[in-house]
């Protein structure tokens, strides 16, 4: 206890200034010191970093913007390619369909042409056949008629030179001949 009280009295004895005293020299040094720090930092340190940070923001935002632009470009290009590919697919399909149509029409045309040709040939053959037959018939009729008349003349002894009559006889005979096999077949 005595130790403490003596310490207190010792402290009271020494005349130290009040802790709330503001010595002018200290005050002035503190003010000057702050303004030196403020001045130096405001002039030499902080404008540079402020500018750099702004540039960094720009760079990052610019980078993002550029990336977005590139992505959009790539997407539109891809879209374009996709369109082109689907266009090509459509075109190929159209070409294939057209080729099939063409093939079909070519075949049909060929068939039709062949048909026409066949019928033409058939018609021509028939006509030729008819002509030949009628030619043959008339020739035959003449020959057979002549021979029959000759023969009959010789047998009967009378001249059957009357052509008109003999012709009618021959015709009737031949018509009988033509009818006879048909009846027999029936």
């Amino acid at each position: 206890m005595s130790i403490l009280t003596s310490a207190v009295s010792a402290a009271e004895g020494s005349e130290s200034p009040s802790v709330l005293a503001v010595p002018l020299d200290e005050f002035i040094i503190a003010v000057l010191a702050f303004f030196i720090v403020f001045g130096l930092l405001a002039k030499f340190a902080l404008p540079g970093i402020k500018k750099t940070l702004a540039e960094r923001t720009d760079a990052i935002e610019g980078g993002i913007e550029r990336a977005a632009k590139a992505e959009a470009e790539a997407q539109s290009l891809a879209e374009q390619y996709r369109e082109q590919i689907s266009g090509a697919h459509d075109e190929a399909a159209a070409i294939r369909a057209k080729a099939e149509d063409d093939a079909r029409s070519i075949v049909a045309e060929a068939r039709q042409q062949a048909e026409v040709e066949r019928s033409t040939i058939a018609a021509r053959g028939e006509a030729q056949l008819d002509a030949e037959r009628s030619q043959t018939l008339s020739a035959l009729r003449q020959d057979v008629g002549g021979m029959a008349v000759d023969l009959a003349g010789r047998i009967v002894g009378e001249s059957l030179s009357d052509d008109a009559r003999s012709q009618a006889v021959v015709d009737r005979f031949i018509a009988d001949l033509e009818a006879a096999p048909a009846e027999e077949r029936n």
Partner: protein
Amino acid sequence: MTALPSSAWGCNISDGCEIPAPKSDIFFEYETLFEIWFFKFDKPMLLILIAVVLVAGFFIFAFRKPTIVPRGTQNLAELAYNFIRDMVQENIGKAGERFIPFLFSLFFFVWVMNFMGIFPLTMLPPTAYFAVPVALALIVYLTWVPLGMIRQGPWGFFKNIMFPPGLPKPLYILLTPIELISNLLVRPFTHSVRLFANMFAGHLLLVTFSALAWFLATASLWILTSALSFTVVTALTGLELLIQALQAYIFTLLTAVYISDALSGEH
């Protein structure tokens, strides 16, 4: 230049020395090292100047050639810059941008001076000398008061301080004098005393327990109390580290709030 006051230095219980109970006089026993005109340069004065060199030197070095992709010290210094910038943006907004250098200087100047209270080679915070917080608080006061008068007009400035809006009229009889006194007179005082008292008390505590730890360090059972004192000093040093940063932050934050009030005229 020693950390402990001369009265406590070497004072040990085994010498029959009285118990060292440091008082405020420990702040005033540093001898004048040199004198220019009426400026007496002692330890705290020199520490102020060293703080100037450290703060200005570090940031000028770190930001000497700032690059878009930060390297080395620029990273660290950018953390500091962003810390202040965020504080300004939160408390003042966009208009606060031109006050960043002011608040930046204030925070780091105060913090470095505070930190000298536990830095082994200095062990004395210049901010524990009332003249330093007073000087800074006065600079802040002479910044926001004229700023408010310019921004709101002299009458508008006082009107906004004296008549906070949205209150029933009779209340102003009571409130107006209180607001006027608290904002214009008490504000700079509390602003400076808060910083000073924290640093002053912190330093006194550290010295007290340091002296006690030394005083009780004898080859007897007293060594246990000495160890306890040493533990307390260690813990207090950690606490001081926190308080130093916190007080520097509060000092700067209040400055930002005062500037914000002056710019907008709101509370």
